[in-house]
């Protein structure tokens, strides 16, 4: 569910915006977004009041200090955070590259560009469903290796292609790598850290 919600948003958000831009204008898409925010605020305000089951003590700075203290004593957590931070710096470069490929190489329309993000998100959702069905991959290291290889291979192919339909397939593959990566890192963090 943690992977499906955001991926559904990433699929339908750009798609609706692309359709609005192509049939009306950018202004219509911005107004649509404002209307959506308004609905979100109303829905959030109507949510029933809930108390958090666990309240962290101390200020945010103290919590960060405690977090760094825990990382110093638990090397595996340091390496998981290292992976999360530094791999994201490199693999995250895909996000500015995708619009550049759409404009400079594929010369897409607004809706076609929206479908590119849609393919990425559908890949993410499909992998999340498959992982949920098979119950995840038992070896975290294998899951992480599969994720980086899947993402890297499809990203290189995306950089090489000038065919729109192939690009959609490669984006689907790149998206499929995200749940493997994200779910495994979160599982490792939960496994090696205590709630406090």
């Amino acid at each position: 569910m943690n992977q499906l919600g955001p991926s559904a948003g990433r699929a339908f958000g750009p798609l609706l915006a692309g359709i609005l831009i192509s049939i009306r204008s950018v202004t219509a898409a911005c107004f649509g977004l404002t209307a959506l925010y308004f609905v979100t605020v109303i829905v959030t305000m109507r949510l029933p009041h809930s108390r958090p089951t666990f309240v962290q003590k101390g200020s945010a700075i103290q919590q960060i200090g405690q977090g760094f203290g825990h990382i110093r004593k638990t090397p595996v957590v340091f390496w998981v955070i290292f992976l999360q931070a530094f791999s994201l710096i490199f693999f995250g470069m895909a996000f500015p590259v995708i619009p550049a490929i759409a404009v400079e190489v594929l010369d897409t329309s607004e809706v076609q560009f929206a479908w590119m993000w849609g393919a990425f998100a559908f890949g993410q959702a499909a992998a999340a469903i498959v992982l949920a069905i098979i119950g995840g991959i038992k070896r975290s290291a294998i899951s992480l290796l599969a994720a980086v290889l899947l993402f890297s291979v499809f990203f290189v192919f995306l950089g090489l292609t000038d065919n729109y339909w192939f690009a959609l397939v490669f984006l689907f593959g790149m998206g499929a790598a995200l749940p493997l990566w994200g779910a495994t890192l979160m599982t490792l963090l939960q496994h090696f850290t205590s709630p406090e």
Partner: protein
Amino acid sequence: MSVVAIAVQSLAIAWLLGGWLLDVAGIMPTVLTAVIGGLTVFFIAIVASKELRSS
């Protein structure tokens, strides 16, 4: 979780670095930098951490 939240902010650096590389080098060099850099980070962590390797 506070430290994890800080780590996730590296995505902003990815946008900046990716955008800058696209301007100065082009699409394919940016793709290769991202892939080689990401794989290097992954293998550094896997080689350095026995627990991560055996997890």
